[in-house]
């Protein structure tokens, strides 16, 4: 029985990694949480087979870590830079972890699975590396049209709300990855997020929201946020996050009042 269970879990992981239409559809359902837990366990326990330093690029110069648990081999991104606020150039793997935890609280599946782990004596965030992707910048530059435009726009609408919530860059084309086979959309890189400002992003207007995200936002309370993110964010960062949550909900309510619920709230495809 136990063996059977682990086989199922392994299958789920493979589906997720493939990111194909089947995997994406499967994840969008109720089992999302379970698959994330499986992947988090893998990221925590899998043996580090190889570390590639300096190849990933980017300002935080993360390491590419090759992992194996004997059955499944995967690559992950390890970020270790830790300059939390107050500092002149804040950038920390702890904001990555906080963003991932918040995405879980809201039931969002576009932040790849992540855990905190110490590698070569350095604490950091270890995030599943999604392969077979293109950046949104690349897609736009190549003029590639998504096969399901509506689903793609819905995914970007949810990302935009999340970016307002965590106060990170608005639809940055290099931080949005698109799975080439399934057109599943991912959002990475939150290491500079959670600026303690009690306002929404300038020039990043919220236009639409999924029913599930809207409901999750309304339910999101101070206690659950503090419990999940309290050890990663300062009091000021937490307070600002909660204020922005209120502003996001208020904005959606205003839009609904102006344009009607059908124009604003959508059921995810």
């Amino acid at each position, binding site marked *: 029985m136990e063996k059977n269970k682990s086989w199922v879990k392994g299958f789920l992981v493979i589906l997720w990694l493939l990111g194909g239409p089947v995997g994406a559809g499967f994840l969008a359902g109720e089992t999302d949480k379970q698959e994330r837990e499986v992947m988090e366990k893998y990221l925590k326990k899998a043996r580090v087979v190889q570390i590639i330093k*300096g190849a990933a690029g980017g300002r935080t*110069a993360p390491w590419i870590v090759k992992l194996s648990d004997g059955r499944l081999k995967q690559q992950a991104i390890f970020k270790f*830079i830790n300059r939390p606020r107050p500092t*002149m*150039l804040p950038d920390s793997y702890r904001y990555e972890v906080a963003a991932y935890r918040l995405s879980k609280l809201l039931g969002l599946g576009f932040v790849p699975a992540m855990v905190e782990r110490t590698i070569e004596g350095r604490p950091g965030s270890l995030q599943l590396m999604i392969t077979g992707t293109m950046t949104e910048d690349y897609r736009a*530059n*190549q003029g590639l049209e998504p096969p399901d435009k509506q689903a793609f726009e819905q995914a970007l609408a949810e990302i935009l709300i999340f970016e307002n919530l965590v106060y990170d860059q608005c639809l940055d084309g290099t931080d949005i990855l698109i799975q080439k086979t399934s057109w599943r959309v991912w959002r990475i890189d939150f290491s500079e997020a959670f600026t303690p400002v009690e306002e929404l992003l300038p020039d990043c207007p919220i236009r639409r929201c999924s029913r599930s995200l809207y409901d999750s936002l309304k339910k999101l309370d101070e206690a659950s946020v503090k419990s999940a993110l309290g050890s990663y964010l300062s009091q000021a960062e937490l307070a600002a996050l909660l204020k922005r949550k209120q502003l996001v909900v208020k904005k959606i309510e205003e839009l609904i009042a102006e344009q009607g619920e059908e124009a604003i709230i959508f059921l995810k495809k």
Partner: protein
Amino acid sequence: MAFRFRKKTGEILFLWLWLLLLGLIPAHLPAEEIPCVWSEVSRIVVVGDLHGDYENFVRILKGTRLVDSELNWAAGQVFLVQMGDVLDRGPDARKIFDLIKKLEKQAAAAGGQVQMLLGNHEEMNITGISLDYEDYVTVEQFQSFLPDDFRQRKQKELERKSRRGRSLERLWKEVIQIDMEARNKYLVNFNQKYGKWLLQHNAVIKINDLVFVHGGLSEEFSRWKLEEINKRLRQELGAFQKVLLNGSVYNSFKFEIVYKSNGPLRYRQLALTDGNLMENQVDTILANLEARSLIVSHTPRLVLSLEDMKHFGGKVWIVDTGISRAYGGYLRALIINDGQFSLWGVDDGKK
């Protein structure tokens, strides 16, 4: 008593005035007088990221006949553009800076120019964040920018520790990572001795109809005046220096260039992206800059022929060839003679 009070007050006032003047009188040229545009230049030699490789830099300078055997400027009115990123990964950035300092004066006296641009690694050492990365600041570089007395004292301390079986190199690496006093000494001394001089340099320059910048210019930044970009970067880096050197209290400063991935020191899209839409953007960028081509560095690539530097049919040239042995040691320079591009290079058997 009254006399003593007045005397003391006078001394304090004098001291305050003196400090105020020190703050007001710049050590070098005022920012607005630092030129960044030249025309009617016939020969330009462009050298990419050096990353602490003094020997390879000297080989390029000699190979392109910019200097004589004594490393004195020998190229008259030629312009040398070094694209930034002298620091990190290799050992000898300080020696390169010292040589560039000398050549800047000699070239200017001969009617030429040595223009060293600011790269993201210069930014990272001025701000201090380079020390957060284990393989950026090498032990040799760290030691070279420490104050002499501190370095000697630390060396003796580590030699004693190394007798217990740990390598001196390893101990110095630990100092770079965790010894806050040593890190602070490095930053303060670096900024005092070289940081202010670095702030006399530009991030972006224009020579004839060519624009040179370490990372690249996005469409957004192409709408800025070059002078504005350079001035803004100096202001932002200057804010760090004030905190480090004067102990100024940091008031939240909105950075527009420093550490920004789309800023001129880090923007990679011109080097990494292709496609029609990007080419349209490149055309807009060049039109905004009123330039024929952009010369960028920052993104290393294997260059075996002139074609390998060319992007978008020569609208963009990428000159980071991995000169430093930390990147393979590929000795290359882009030569621009009366608008004609050619490649100088030494192969050393590398393919």
